């Protein structure tokens, strides 16, 4: 693996545990999705993104307002992982550039960053509302591609942390290394079958992960 220069982070499942209900409700009300909400906020979020992507048109007008108000509820109820602040601080000290690359709306991401006091660590924020001119469509991988393009970050020098199969796929489309957040061991065992580039038990392992790659590349060069 190339030495890592940047980390792409989606608040959902990577920086915080989100409730499932609000994402499910968007899916029910805008896309007539049936059935019960998943227990996992991440899974509901990525299912919703599948639906948005399958519809083929961006959310606009009242539909956009409804989605954003329910996402705001999700952000308000999200539990930010306790290791987020120290890890982001450590990564910044190591010279790693940190970007939010999320398919949440810009307003939801902005609220989340304010809630977690994360702004000082971030080099850029890319959401589903931000697209580079001429960038590929697709609500899932577009923020990743936009972040890479906007930051002039080579994809093979970037990691995207995710805890879903869809997240792994989106990272692959963008060409970045998908790193599995193994929040739930049983779910992670299933997701390991999707061959992520790596996996961590918690965010605090990321600095060591990056240091190991540096050490491996140095050792090979010698």
């Amino acid at each position, binding site marked *: 693996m190339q030495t890592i220069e940047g980390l792409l982070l989606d608040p959902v499942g990577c920086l915080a545990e989100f409730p499932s209900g609000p994402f499910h409700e968007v899916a029910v009300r805008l896309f007539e999705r049936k059935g019960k909400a998943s227990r996992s906020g991440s899974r509901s979020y990525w299912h919703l993104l599948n639906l948005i992507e399958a519809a083929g048109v961006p959310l606009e007008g009242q539909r956009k307002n409804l989605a954003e108000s329910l996402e705001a509820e999700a952000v308000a109820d999200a539990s930010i992982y306790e290791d987020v602040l120290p890890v982001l601080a450590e990564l910044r000290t190591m010279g790693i550039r940190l970007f939010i690359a999320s398919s949440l709306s810009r307003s939801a991401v902005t609220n989340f960053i304010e809630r977690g006091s994360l702004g000082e660590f971030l080099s850029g924020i890319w959401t589903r509302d931000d697209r580079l001119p001429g960038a590929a469509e697709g609500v899932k991988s577009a923020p990743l591609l936009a972040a890479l393009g906007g930051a002039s970050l080579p994809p093979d020098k970037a990691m995207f942390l995710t805890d879903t199969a869809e997240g792994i796929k989106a990272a692959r489309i963008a060409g970045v290394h998908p790193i*599995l957040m193994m929040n739930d061991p*049983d779910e992670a065992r299933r997701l390991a079958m999707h061959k992520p580039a790596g996996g961590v038990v918690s965010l605090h392992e990321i600095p060591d992960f990056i240091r190991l790659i540096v050490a491996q590349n*140095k050792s090979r060069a010698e």
Partner: protein
Amino acid sequence: MKKISIYRPSTVDEAIQILSQHGTEAGVYAGGTDLLIRLKNRLHQAPTYLVDIKTIDNLRYIKEDAQGGVEIGAATKLAELADSRLLQDKYPMLVEAVNKISSPELRNASTLGGDLLQEVWCQYLRGGYSCWRNGGYLCYGAIGDNSYYHSAMGGRLCYAVYPGDAATALIPFDARAKLATPQGLKELSIEQLVPGDMMVDGRIQSHVVRFNEILTSVFIPPPKPGLRASFEKLRPRGVWDFAMASLAISLQLRGKTIDDARVVFGGISGKPYRETTVESFLKGKTLSAELGEQAISVALANAAPLKYNATKIDMAKGLLASGLARLNA
């Protein structure tokens, strides 16, 4: 099995030169009970160039120095430690621990150095999974079956337990390891030698020995009068198996009063886990039948078991109680 080359140096200096030449592609070959199995299992991380140190004649000995300490050459067989009258007289707990390492056949081949520096026995690594120690970037033990070979005390990328018993048993004696390096002799405590999950030369390993360094001997200081020690080990089967949990404990006694203590758990963490909270608790206490129950109430407070291995912590606490009871008997 991949093609390998074997070097047979006659001196430690020559061995270091060969290791330096091949970098992390080379590995020290002594008893072979770990290394040859890694090769046989076609592990990506197994070395291509083996440096056979059995041909170096000053690495296999057990000798007493003028002050009553004992030095053991790193290539000394475990069976030779188990049969040593000198070790039996001075450090019976160490001999007891060595006798509980794998099987008699393997003790005839395995060396002290090999036991101290052996690779972990996680079934995913040994099964060729592309994990942190085998060219990959994921710990399958953290998300798979972690009931036997994985840490209940947290981890650093890799969650496998440190498997050796000799290190666990040597720490209570404040033993030290001597390493030959390109820069000269280096001396470390056993705790410093195997701190667990270290990043060394771009690899995750349990010990700090670099690719071009060789563990040459272990020195055990003379035991002080009043030292009593015990080794306990729980394993799925009576022979062969690695510890589900083990305990090496030593008490420096004045009558029944504990002046000093060493409490080291094996099989529960990525390193021999020295439980300093219990050591502090025991200091100044009177050795009694009730002490075990009191000690376990303060033990392993920062345990972080994985999904299937919380029982290791219960086992370790049980060993602490039985170890103290044994020393009180």
